[in-house]
């Protein structure tokens, strides 16, 4: 599946990646190869199969009750690259524009 320059630029923008101009053609070619490889999956006959689920099929819903899996804030923040005053610190983001 051929990928062109414009598509690489668009994907880079969506993924917040900076791809140097000289690397765009090469990236496009590599992405095409990867897609071609993945496309081999379409040779499988999946018509009679439902979508893959890892979910436990029994008891699919939970009652509206609290459980004891909550983490202490310091545990929750332990693996964060940066934290302060109980908050995760992240690169600046515009407020309230999430989907």
């Amino acid at each position, binding site marked *: 599946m051929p990928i062109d320059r414009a598509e690489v630029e668009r994907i880079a923008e969506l993924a917040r990646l900076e791809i140097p101009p000289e690397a765009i053609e090469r990236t496009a070619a590599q992405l095409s190869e990867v897609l071609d490889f993945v496309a081999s999956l379409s040779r499988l006959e999946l018509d009679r199969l439902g979508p893959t689920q890892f*979910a436990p099929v029994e008891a699919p819903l939970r009652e509206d009750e609290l459980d004891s899996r909550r983490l202490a804030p310091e545990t929750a923040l332990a693996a964060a690259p940066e934290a302060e005053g109980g908050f*995760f*610190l*992240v690169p600046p983001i515009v407020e309230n524009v999430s989907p």
Partner: protein
Amino acid sequence: MAYEAVIGLECHIQLGTRSKMFCGCPAEFGAEPNSNVCPVCLGLPGALPRANRAAIDAAIRLGLALGSEIRGESVFARKNYFYPDMPKNYQITQYERPLCEGGALPVTVDGEERSFALVRVHAEEDTGKSFHPERHGDRRVSRVDFNRAGVPLLELVTRPVFRAPVECGAFLTALRRLVRWLGISGGDMEKGQLRCDANVSLRPAGSEPLGTKTEIKNLNSIGGVMKGLAAEIERQRRVLEQGGAIEQATLLYDADREVLAVMRSKESAHDYRYFPEPDLPVLVVDEAWLAEARRRLPELPWTRAARFASEYGLPPYDAGVLTEQRDLADYYEACAREVDEKLASNWLMTEVLRVLKDRGWTLAEWSERVPPGRLVELLKKVAAKELPGPLAKQVFGWMVEEPGGTGELLDRHGVRVQATPEELRPLVRAVLAENPGPVRQYLGGKSATLGFLVGQVMKKSGGQAAPQVVQELLREELEGARRGC
């Protein structure tokens, strides 16, 4: 050229469940940052979500109230996006097969009954909360709190059915009333329990094809929605009138400064790459659940308003006000079953609602002090004209502050209603002697003059005479005078 605006709304309703959408963390507001988080809502590897039955049930009830079709099998989906307010880098929502489809919300706009069609209502999870970027050493950072991440939300999408901001305002007011009525959400926009994004485009009036639309986010009050939309409609109109073209964009509304800011394209660039959520099974809602949810559905506000109009003969305005809140409607009915329906409506709409507003009380707080029975006792005396109006209002005022029935309150405050002919007759005679003109008019057939004379006697009694007795005595004396003529 005249243009016509076409507006569609996307509303988010935060549900008032105890726990989050997919885990057992508290869904409460105002906890210490990052204290209501667990491996599931933090998106830690290996953690599996499980949907909250109460949240699904709330979605079903809202869907039923709106006349939507409820899918027996609906599917959760991953909405992928690059935003640090969701630790998983995706939001679990519904996409291709949402829980509720279609339906409409009945809304009164400027006294007219309208109905606004919906595309869908589905269940999803809220995102975390990020705070204004701030300086941190030599760079800027945002703080993120994930307590809200995973709190149950319903997303409701309308068709592009609105033509004016005022319709959107009325729609949101009606939606807020409905979610509170059903008890599924606080519905407070200032608290983010109800949020709204709007899509708006302009087209030449009367033409069919839609123009290029823009999306306004950050609309966090009903007034803000109307002002933000009015500003954007005006902006688009100016661009089009100058021969320009509208560019598709996402705008943020700044309610404090009342201005719209265009988001840089990079910030609004998205491609959500939805796919079915592999960690959750198909959501099955069987007939038994539906039937049971339908049984639990209360009489809906618009049905109740119509019934108030037909059963109690209330004007549509009264019926609308009294059905703004379910507990107010309940309180009203408890009164209207015992005493004149319009009198009860008048007292609730003016006196009771004024006290609520002045004191910032909820109806429950009011009802605790003045249960319907207590108000009914007072209103019965007003209806029977045993109490003069101003005195009744005074008793009402005491009622708010003190315990006791109407008679008890009058005694405690040393007020005695003059209700015997013996004590009132001298006042009546004095008034007749002092007002020969009106008396002549009455005897000449102008019976409306009686009201004036009643008022004079009331004044003379210091507002403490029972109007009904005064009226009877006046009639008696005047008829006596007529015969004596």
